[in-house]
């Protein structure tokens, strides 16, 4: 059995034609996902992380979208796959869980029926009764009590956490190889977030389910990810293993993200740290590094954008896009003894 990647994304570019011009939402993203691996894609709103995820299964296809590059699932190209082929693998080989479980179920159908619908779309021979039994098994697997009663409930009769569990049950219905979770915990309470992350971790472990976790929350990443991609303005600015990203971050944007995590093991700061400024408009990107206007460490080389390269001799898989030398980075990323991004002097 080959140990090659399950999902291989190469130089993926997604552009949308808008009234204000062409918007390059995803600009040359590449990554591999191995069986059983949890890959986190991290970034602010508008960084292109959700568009990347949705493009993997063709959800961004439309008249005004231009998709280039390659997405291969076990060697099969998806960006050029026909609608019918693509539909067949949605749910069955790559399943997706969305951010807001309130609005991601159709309010007028019973939850059980919506999952049955997914099963029967791929297994037309399955009887309603068989599909229903399967739903109850899934409910138990994701920790929804009283499965027998709850299958006939409507979405509004579920709590937010239960709805997200049901969403995950739906994603698991056809035993996919890849699960894409797009901000799966963002709309939930903190305690429920932890439960959902536990569940995703458990599924990943027990079913060897390769998972792509899209989030803006590094706290979530720290819980379950194996590898991390940090995205900014449509590009990957840093990638590495969880430890590399958390303990040896190379890109100032990553420092900023780490610095803005609230930590309960440290004294409470007067103001919660944040990255100054706003992400740039994708229609009006600055020349060179797009993080430049927000970066306190900007210098003469920044008007040129560096490639995503490994800059540390000891870690070949740890790549970033920053001109600073590793020594400079090690010195500059410390703010009051912790990793962070100092406030800009301007």
């Amino acid at each position, binding site marked *: 059995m080959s140990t090659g990647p399950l999902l291989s994304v190469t130089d993926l570019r997604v552009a949308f034609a808008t009234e204000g011009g062409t918007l390059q939402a995803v600009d040359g993203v590449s990554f591999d996902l191995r069986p059983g691996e949890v890959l986190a894609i991290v970034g602010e709103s508008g960084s292109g992380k959700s568009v990347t995820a949705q493009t993997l299964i063709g959800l961004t296809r439309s008249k005004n979208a231009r998709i280039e590059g390659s997405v291969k699932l076990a060697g099969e190209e998806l960006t050029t796959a026909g609608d019918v082929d693509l539909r067949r693998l949605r749910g*069955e080989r790559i399943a997706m869980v969305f951010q807001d479980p309130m*609005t991601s179920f159709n309010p007028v159908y019973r939850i059980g029926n919506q999952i049955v619908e997914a099963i029967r779309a791929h297994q037309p021979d399955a009887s309603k009764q068989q599909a229903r039994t399967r739903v109850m098994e899934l409910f138990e697997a994701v920790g929804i009590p009283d499965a027998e009663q709850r299958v006939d409930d*409507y979405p*509004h009769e579920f709590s937010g956490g239960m709805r997200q569990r049901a969403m995950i049950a739906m994603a698991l219905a056809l035993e996919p190889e890849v699960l894409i979770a797009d901000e799966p915990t963002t709309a939930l309470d903190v305690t429920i977030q932890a439960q959902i992350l536990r569940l995703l971790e458990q599924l990943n472990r027990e079913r060897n389910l390769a998972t792509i976790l899209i989030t803006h929350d590094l706290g979530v990443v720290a819980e379950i990810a194996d590898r991390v991609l940090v995205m900014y303005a449509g590009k990957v600015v840093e990638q590495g293993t969880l430890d590399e990203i958390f303990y040896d971050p190379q890109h100032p944007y990553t420092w900023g993200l780490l610095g803005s995590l609230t930590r309960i093991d440290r004294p409470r700061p007067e103001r919660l740290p944040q990255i100054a400024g706003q992400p740039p408009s994708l229609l009006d990107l600055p020349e060179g590094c797009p993080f430049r206007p927000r970066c306190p460490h900007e210098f003469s080389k920044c008007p040129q954008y560096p490639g995503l390269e490994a800059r540390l001799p000891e870690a070949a898989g740890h790549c970033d896009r920053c001109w600073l030398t590793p020594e400079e980075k090690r010195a500059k990323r410390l703010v009051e003894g912790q990793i962070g991004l100092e406030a800009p002097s301007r």
Partner: protein
Amino acid sequence: MTRFVVRRLVGMVAVLFAVSVIVFVVFMVLPKQNPAQSLAGKNATPLLVENIEEEWGFNESLPHQYLTMMEKVFTGGLVQYEPRIPVDDEIVKRIPATFSLTIGAAAIWLFFGLLLGYLSAVRAGGWLDRILTGVSIAGISIPVFLLAPVLIYVFANQLEIFPNGQYVPFSEDPWEWANHLILPWVTLAALSIGFYSRVLRTNMLDAMDEDYVRTARAKGLSERHVMTRHVLRNSLIPVVTLFGLDFGATIAGTAIITEAIYDLDGVGFYAALAVEKFELPQIMGVTLYGAFFVVLMNTLVDVFYAYLDPRVRLGEAASE
């Protein structure tokens, strides 16, 4: 659900009671003129007026007068005097024509409104959408009093495909019944076809942006399945409301111009004549008839609404 239906029916009776009180106050209590005089008609003899005063108990207390009126309404005592003709007979006699016109037209406008709206939404931005948009706007813009004469001129007078209006009872000749009604149906439906297709198109385009539609695609449903089971199904909910109100109002008398132009002796036509001559018994009868159907359709819409959208049922349970 049973409980929901019962509550709606009770509500319906309450609304009808309120309507009857308003009718009583507006026609019997508020006018300065002696109501007996109004009921009797313009050229009534003093003797007739006196008899009516006696019959309706206008010397008694107001609640007593109200009860007398309601008794007359329910027992067929609401009559046109000189010549003495019961109003309910006159209305019932005209109901087949009005129902044939309105139910037929409603079926046509609902079918074509939804069909055109669906096609327009699925092909949004394409040439089919543009053509259908033009057709819809034309349907909405052309007034009935213009459309009807044009249809009569072209299809009845020139091409002689369809007869020029008039009503043939279904029981006499179903074929002629339909043949005579086609032009009136089209006339009455044209505006609503345009309007409904626009409303459905807008609703569907909104629904297509919903998260649950993306979920439906992500689980691998076919595009047609997504459109019908998820987008269309949820977009129908507002259309049902609209249809209930419009259909009730059409039965209650908005078909009046169509009935007049095509010489269909329906309830709307009867109401128009009554208002023209200010014949109080007929006006009262038609008002109550109209109110009944508007309220009935509203109730049916509410019940159907709860069937379509389970959250409505929940709201009802929560308010108990």
